[in-house]
C-alpha cells in the first residue's frame, strides 16, 4: 500500500502550528516513514499536482483570494483538517471582526489600505467542509499525533467535550480562581492537557468554547469574584470572535 499523500497549507496565521509539526524532532523521521509529505511550503520546496489524501489547513480565511484557494484545495483533498485555532475557530485574527474593516485597514496601512482588500475573518469550516479539527494556539503535539493516527486508520476523532479544568485538576494545579484570577478553563474545550495553567498562566480559551457552556453560571462566578462582564466578553473575543458567524 502506498503511503498517503499529505500536504500542509497556510493561510492568515503565524505558521506556529506548522512549526509545531516541524518541531516534532526525531519523530519527524517516524512521520515520513508512514506518510508521504508532498507539500509543506514552510520547510519544503516540493510541489504536488495530484490529489491529496490529507490536507492540513493552517490559518484563517481573510480575503477573497483565500476563499478561492481553500475551495480548490478542498476539491483536491480526500480529507481536510483544520490545524490550529486560526483554522478551527478563527483565533486571534477574529479580533479584527470587532472593527470596521475600512478603518482597521486605514489604521495599519494609511491610504494604501485599498490595496489590501479584506473580509471578515472566517474559520475554515465557515468556508469549506472540514473533516477533522485540531484545536489550539499553537496545536498541542500529542493531540496532533493522536488525530493523525485516527486519520490514518480512518477513525473519527472526537474533540473532548469537557472543559480544560478536567485536565487542570488532574495535573493538580492550584486553581487560578484560588489565586484570585480569571481563567477561561471552565468554558474552554480540553485536549491541551491544561498547558498554560501548568506553566503558571491562565487559560485564554484558545481551543474554543465547550459545546454546552453554562454562560449564566460562569457570569455568576465572575460576579462572585468581582470581575466585570465586559472584561470577560473581551476575553472570549480574543479567540472566539468568529463563533458569531456560526450562530448567525
Amino acid at each position: 500500500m502506498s503511503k498517503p499523500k499529505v500536504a500542509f497549507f497556510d493561510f492568515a496565521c503565524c505558521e506556529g502550528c506548522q512549526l509545531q509539526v516541524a518541531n516534532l524532532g526525531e519523530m519527524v523521521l517516524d512521520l515520513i516513514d508512514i506518510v508521504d509529505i508532498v507539500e509543506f511550503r514552510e520547510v519544503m520546496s516540493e510541489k504536488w499536482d495530484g490529489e491529496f489524501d490529507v490536507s492540513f489547513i493552517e490559518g484563517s480565511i481573510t480575503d477573497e483570494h483565500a476563499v478561492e484557494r481553500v475551495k480548490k484545495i478542498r476539491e483536491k483533498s480526500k480529507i481536510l483538517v483544520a490545524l490550529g485555532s486560526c483554522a478551527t475557530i478563527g483565533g486571534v485574527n477574529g479580533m479584527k471582526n470587532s472593527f470596521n474593516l475600512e478603518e482597521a485597514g486605514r489604521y495599519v496601512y494609511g491610504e494604501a489600505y485599498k490595496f489590501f482588500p479584506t473580509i471578515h475573518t472566517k474559520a475554515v469550516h465557515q468556508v469549506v467542509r472540514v473533516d477533522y479539527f485540531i484545536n489550539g494556539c499553537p496545536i498541542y503535539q500529542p493531540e496532533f499525533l493522536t488525530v493523525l493516527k485516527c486519520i490514518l486508520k480512518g477513525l473519527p476523532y472526537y474533540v473532548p467535550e469537557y472543559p480544560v479544568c478536567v485536565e487542570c485538576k488532574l495535573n493538580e494545579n492550584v486553581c487560578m480562581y484560588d489565586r484570585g484570577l480569571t481563567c477561561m478553563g471552565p468554558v474552554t474545550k480540553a485536549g491541551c492537557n491544561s498547558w498554560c495553567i501548568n506553566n503558571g498562566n491562565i487559560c485564554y480559551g484558545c481551543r474554543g468554547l465547550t459545546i454546552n457552556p453554562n454562560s449564566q453560571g460562569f457570569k455568576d462566578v465572575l460576579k462572585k469574584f468581582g470581575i466585570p462582564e465586559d472584561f470577560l466578553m473581551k476575553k472570549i473575543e480574543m479567540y472566539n470572535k468568529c463563533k458569531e458567524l456560526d450562530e448567525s
Partner: protein
Amino acid sequence: MKIEQYRLIEKSRIKEFLNKLISIYNVVAPVEKGFNNFAFEQIRTADEVRLNYIPTILPPKKYFLPKKETILEFELGDELKVEPVTEYENLVLFGVHTCDIAGIKCLNMVLSDRPKDTAYLIRKKHITIIGIECNNYCDDYASCSFVGAHIPTTGYDLMFTELSEHFIVHVHSSKGMEIVEKTEMFKGADQNTIEELKILRNNKLKVFNNEIPTERRYIPDLFDRSFNATVWQELESKCLSCGNCTAVCPTCYCFDIKEDVELSLKRGERYRVWFSCQLDPFAKVAGGIDFRRERSARQRHRFYRKFRYHIDRYGMIFCTGCGRCSRTCMAGINLKEVLTSLIRESEAKIWRKWL
C-alpha cells in the same frame, strides 16, 4: 487500647524520623503548593513536608487508582496479541488524614468487589499508609464528624496522634511494625500517654460537633424523599460542569477507557483515565441520547452516589467529609449547604403533612 500496640516519638524528632524514612523508602507526603493548596508528592527531604495541612488538591487515591493507567498492551497485526499489565511502586504514604483513609476504604469496597480489580489490589499491597490524626477541623468546609471519619479506626499501618510532647503512634499492622523497627526511633508508650490520648479523643467529641443538622442514620431516608427537591434545580444554573468536584473526591472512581497506538502503528496500549459524571460525554450513548443531560440531574447523581446508592450496595456513605468538592468549586456549590437545604426542604414537607 492495648498499650503494646502504641509507640511514642518526641515531637522534636519528627523531621529526623522523616529523613530516616526517606533513606529507606519512597515516601509520599503533603507539600505546600501556595495559596493554601497542598498536594501529595514524593519528597526528598523532611523540610518539604507540611504536617499541618488542609486536604490536598487531589486525594491519595491517585496512588491507588492512577489518573491514567495502562491496562492492556497490544501489538497490531493480523493476530491478536494482548497482554494485561499493571504498574506498581513500593510507597509509603505519610501524613494521611483520617478522611482520606476513609476514602481509600471506599475504593477498597468497590474495587475488591467481584470481578476484582487485580491491578488495584496489586498496587494497594505495595502501599503503606501512615496516618496523622487531626485534633481540630481543617477549615469550615470539612464535615468529617458527620460521616464519622474524624476518629481513626482502621485502614492504616501506623497512625500518628499529636499529644503535648509526643506523637503517640498506633501500630496497626506488621508493615507498620517494620517501619517502627527499621527507623529505630520509637519507644514504648506509657500509661500516662495512653491516658492523654483518651482525654484527647474525648475532647474531640466536643471540638468536632455535628456539621450538618441531622444524623447520619437519617440520611437514606432524607435522600429517599429528596429526588425531586428544588435544590437540584438551583444547581442547574450554578454548576459549570467542570468536573472539579469529582476529580478531587476521594471516593469518586468512575473512569473512561481509551487507547493509544504508537506512530509506527505497530504497538499500542489500552488505558483508563479518571472521568466524571459531571461531564457531557459521560452518559451519552452512540445514538446521541444523553441520559443525564441536565446539569441538575448530574449534580443530583453525584450527591446520590455519595449519600444514597452506595449505602444499599456497600453499606457505606461514600463521602468522607474532607470538604474538597466544596473547596474546589468555583461556582460555590457547597456540600454542607446542599445537605442543609435538603433537610430544610424535607422538614417543611413533613410539617405540612402534620398540620
